[in-house]
């Protein structure tokens, strides 16, 4: 094997903690992730903390394909964890990243992924302060898996909880739904459509922080990842003990998403999103929230899509159809699209 070949792909030795591991860190990770916490390269990163309530979350990313329109597994690994913190009312402070890489994975692809992670982190000023790399044999993993853990502190203004949700509250989404799930499917199945379906993958902490600082009427938030709008609305309704009525006419869905999902027999209400959140807002703040959202690039398609109502206490979610009928929405069953995140 000549040196060029060994330089092209990940080898088992890149994960053995020896010379190649060090080279991998020095050449691929450090230049991109560089920050004062990580640079020490000690067994654990030490960092100052804030007083008050902290939040921590962890998530593994196994999306297939690893590159898709609007993002890649690296960007997704940052956004997914950041968004989980953000919808909990936390400001993200630090991130860790752990990579499981399949032997033979092209180093050029690893570089692209690392650059994309670093770019997303820079945009939101979030340092990756610890990390790990393991390599498994060919066929023992599919290309690359990334686990990120995020730590943040709960904003003073954030008072989020199911218990604050009351009948009459408005249900708002910040943008169109179904884009991520469909973009993955279209990419995976190599369908050839005239219009590209672009994932909504984006970090939501900035826009959410703005909302929380301005409106005390924001009572609950949830990012609409796996299971999509319908499943997440159902979970919220059950936990709050009230019904949610959504209006099909008001739910923002891109025309091309509508068209392709109809063709493939999918329901956009159940497709995953990676830069879309739902918030339950007191009626008096609803219009203000929309006005603020509309000014932000991640909120320009925002809309009030429904209302909380008293119901019988079962936590049902109803969709008022465009035709004027109604149907009950339940949680996603089965997994029509595995490995979307």
């Amino acid at each position: 094997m000549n040196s060029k070949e060994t330089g092209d792909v990940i080898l088992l030795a890149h994960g053995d903690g020896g010379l190649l591991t060090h080279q991998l860190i020095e050449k691929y990770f450090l230049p991109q992730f560089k920050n004062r916490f990580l640079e020490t390269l000690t067994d654990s990163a030490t960092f100052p903390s804030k007083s008050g309530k902290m939040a921590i979350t962890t998530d593994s990313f196994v999306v297939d394909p690893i590159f898709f329109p609007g993002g890649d597994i690296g960007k997704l690994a940052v956004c997914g964890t950041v968004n989980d913190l953000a919808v909990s009312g936390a400001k993200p402070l630090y991130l860790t990243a752990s990579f499981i890489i399949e032997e033979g994975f092209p180093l050029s692809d690893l570089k692209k992924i690392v650059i994309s992670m670093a770019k997303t982190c820079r945009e939101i000023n979030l340092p990756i302060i610890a990390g790990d790399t393991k390599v498994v044999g060919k066929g023992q993993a599919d290309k690359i898996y990334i686990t990120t853990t995020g730590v943040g502190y709960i904003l003073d203004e954030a008072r989020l909880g199911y218990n604050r949700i009351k009948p009459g509250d408005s249900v708002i989404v910040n943008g169109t739904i179904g884009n991520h799930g469909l973009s993955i499917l279209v990419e995976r199945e190599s369908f050839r459509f005239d219009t590209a379906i672009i994932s909504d993958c984006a970090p939501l902490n900035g826009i959410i922080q703005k909302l929380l600082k301005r409106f005390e009427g924001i009572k609950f938030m949830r990012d609409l990842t796996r299971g999509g709008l319908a499943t997440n609305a159902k979970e919220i309704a059950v936990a709050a003990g009230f019904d949610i009525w959504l209006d099909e006419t008001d739910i923002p869905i891109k025309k091309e998403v509508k068209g392709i999902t109809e063709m493939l027999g999918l329901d956009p209400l159940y497709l995953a999103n990676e830069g879309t959140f739902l918030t339950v807002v007191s009626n008096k703040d609803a219009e203000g929230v929309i006005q603020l959202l509309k000014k932000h690039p991640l909120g320009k398609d925002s809309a009030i899509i429904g209302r909380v109502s008293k119901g019988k206490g079962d936590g049902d979610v109803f969709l008022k159809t465009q035709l004027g009928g109604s149907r009950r929405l339940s949680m996603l069953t089965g997994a029509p699209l595995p490995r979307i995140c």
Partner: protein
Amino acid sequence: MELDKKLLKKVIELSKRVTEKKGRKIYLMEVCGTHTTAISKSGLRSLISDTIELRSGPGCPVCVTDQSHVDKIIALARQHPVVIATFGDMVRVPGTHSSLERERARGAQVEIFYSPHEAILFAKKNPRKEIVFLGIGFETTAPAIAMSIADAHNQGIKNYSVVALHKSVPPVMRALLDDEDLHVDGFMLPGHVCTITGRKIFDFISSEYSIPAVIAGFETTDILQAIYLLLEQFFSGRVQTINAYTRLVHEEGNGKAKKIINEFFETVDTAWRGFGFIPDSGFCLKPDYAYYNAEKRFSVEVGESSMPEGCSCGDVLRGKMKPFHCPLFGKTCTPANPVGPCMVSSEGACAAYYNYSDW
């Protein structure tokens, strides 16, 4: 949408006049599973339920696949080191003892494809693997299966074969109409199937059995329009098989597609779930293409097939039972844990009623 609402109003008004004239509710059957799903999704069923009852028919390809055929496919996945290539719906259909989903968990190779063309590309890329495509569907997808065999034949792809279980819709319509216990006042015919078969082949519904039929598209507007055209026939007294999906369906259908079906397949008697054997209703590969017939290439041992106790998929497919009248519906049989195929397939009536809470 405003148009739909206006059309809905007209449908309701006319249906009231028809029910007054008949002295009872009107029973219409939507034969196609895609119609069932579209109707449930729009919330239409409950909006017209005072005067019209819509019943689902044998129009979901996975659902009408007989249990013995499902068992054969599962046995094939278990007994031979092949790659089962299939449309997604088939994976979770329970056979007598197992499902493809379970076999996959045990190590069988099952790949989901959206078209047989993709399976051909997969076969080309993986010359050491035997790819078996599950040919399940109606006239709509039969030409694509035929094309894939043509591709394999012309390109010398030896590691591709098909389980030919495609079915023809006109014979099952006749089986429905010959059923004396079935009370249906009119049929909404499957738009997609008719793009291939054409309108004329369904003329017998109105001419021989004096029951109105309308070929419908899949938008809410199409469905409302079809219902309106059915209702009108009860008044005019002129019973016809009307093509209301003229933007895609022609009198004689798609000549090219029909030609390729005839080139590769011959019709045989075949078993349908809920119906038993229906004469000339199955598409079997012609002897010239026996090489691509997976059933000839791989022999399997299959035990006796049976349906789980209480499963009413057969009755649902024959329009005899509404999904929610099945004792298992929503209790032991749900999309997460399906007992029968009608709860699995995205075109299955039980899944549509359950997922869109249409009961």
